[in-house]
């Protein structure tokens, strides 16, 4: 008997979801599904990221299409709301409460009977003092962000929706939270994080959702997305001891669209930058091309398969 591989059910399923406010289309016909792990949601300001995240939590209904979280409608199913947590973008919290009381309240409202213990733990996870008594209104933006993350941990959520959670944090705390989100994803939670700081997003992992003008521009591993973007030539830098000879060979043999020579600089040999439509073909043939001209390859570096380039290409389409 052959075993049939079991595909885990998606934790988030969005089908043809649209949302508009008056004449403004905030989200247009978006479909995707996500399982465990960290996914970064990218998009320029006003692209519809926050509206999409609010729809995922049931905070606003789609005008068309469906949103299912763990198989249920988060707007109608009380039980599933207990398995979602959110770090909203807005700063406002309950002004009358201190951080411990705020996080403790989240635990109580989630039906947790040992809220003190859970709240202390959650605050310690984000490196805040549970015994700090002052109101959160006196906290810095970074501290407020960490309190918001702490309240999102108390219900041991299956799905975490984090809207710009790193805003206002110092570099050390950013690293700490990026690591925390990674661990949460590794433990089987579906963590979706929006951010506009691409360097940070790259550190969450490679899985991205890119939203532009309310539409889903791309989804998946951003390097794979880049490979599929055949309307944009790939740009690759090659450094070698014989740049002119190898550049000529490359133009003749590996489908280069354009080659620009670069002079040697201090401590680095010269080279060239090549534009090609087929990056994988280039990568497999550059070694043989260099052998043919007797050149030593010092460096072969893709210049535009980083997240920043992929993002720029997608939103400019």
């Amino acid at each position, binding site marked *: 008997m052959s075993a049939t591989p079991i595909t885990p059910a998606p934790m988030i399923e969005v089908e043809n979801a649209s949302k508009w406010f008056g004449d403004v289309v905030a989200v247009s016909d978006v479909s995707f599904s996500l399982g465990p792990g960290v996914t970064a949601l990218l998009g320029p300001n006003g692209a519809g990221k926050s509206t999409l995240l609010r729809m995922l*939590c049931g*905070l606003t209904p789609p005008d068309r299409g469906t949103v299912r979280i763990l198989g249920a409608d988060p707007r109608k199913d009380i*039980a599933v709301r207990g398995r979602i947590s959110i770090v909203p973008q807005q700063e406002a919290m309950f002004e009358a409460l201190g951080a411990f009381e705020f996080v403790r309240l989240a635990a109580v*409202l*989630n039906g947790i*009977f040992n809220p003190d213990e859970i709240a202390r*733990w959650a605050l310690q996870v984000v*490196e805040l003092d549970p015994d700090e008594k002052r109101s959160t209104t006196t906290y810095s933006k970074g501290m407020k962000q960490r309190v918001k993350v702490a309240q999102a941990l108390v219900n041991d959520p299956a799905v975490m929706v984090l809207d710009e959670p790193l805003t206002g944090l110092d570099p050390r705390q950013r690293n700490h939270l990026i690591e925390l989100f990674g661990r949460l994803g590794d433990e089987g939670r579906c963590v979706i994080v929006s951010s506009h700081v691409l360097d940070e997003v790259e550190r969450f992992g490679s899985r991205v959702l890119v939203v532009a003008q309310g539409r889903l521009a791309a989804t998946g591993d951003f390097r794979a997305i880049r490979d599929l973007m055949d309307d944009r030539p790939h740009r690759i830098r090659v450094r070698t001891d014989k740049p002119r000879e190898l550049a000529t060979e490359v133009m003749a043999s590996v489908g280069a669209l354009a080659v620009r020579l670069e002079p040697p600089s201090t401590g680095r040999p010269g080279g060239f930058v090549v534009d090609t439509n087929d990056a994988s073909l280039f990568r497999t043939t550059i070694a043989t091309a260099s052998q043919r001209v007797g050149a030593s390859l010092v460096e072969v570096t893709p210049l535009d398969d980083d997240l920043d380039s992929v993002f720029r290409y997608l939103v400019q389409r």
Partner: protein
Amino acid sequence: MTTTTQPPSPVRGSALDRTLRAEYRLILRSICTPGRLAALIILSAISLLTAFATKAGSSLDPLQDGVGYVNANVATLIPVAVLVLGAASLGDMLEDGSMVYLWLRPVPHWVHLLAAWMATVTVAVPVVLVPVIAGTLVIHPDSTLLLSVVVAGLVAIGAYSALFVTGGVRFKRALPWGLVYILIWEGFVASAGQTATKLAVRSYVRSILEQITGVELKLANFSLASGILVPLLVGALILAYGARRLSRSDIA
């Protein structure tokens, strides 16, 4: 510091009373801002001063004076104070976006409305009703009058609280809407005819005053039972509407 992302074995259960208590305490603390309390205490102090003024210029019928004093406060101080508290209870959270921390919990949305109503009543009774009772006793220390002001005041606070807590959920600017309701609808329109009278809390509260004290009041056409039950039942229905509305709201 080493931390784990696994919480220390949470003990879970479904206990609406714990949730209700927690939300009640939160909203109670939220609406009791120093500025708001100071404003309401000043208004109550002014009301108490008018009681002394009424006593000083007393007419031949202190019972009539006492009922007139309560009637005036039921028409102005009590609804305005309850509006200030009730509209803020959930309305402020919806406005600043902190409602998300209540809405996205495994809690039925009627619990939020009920907690807000309880908190509004809890503050309004000592801050507004107690001074009105004191003022009434200043004018005429009579047990019948005392009973009437307690019953009428509690019914008014209960009904207006339901109305204005829901108003805070329904309207973005609940305060001006509430003032329009108090001043225009209850103050003028409701005195225009029998049908409009049935849609004003003030008419039922006046009926309670009239039925208990025997002092005749305009637009007090209901029995004591109707005067007590109708505003409270309608208030419960309005809270249910508010919960439904909150469930269907867009939460920022």
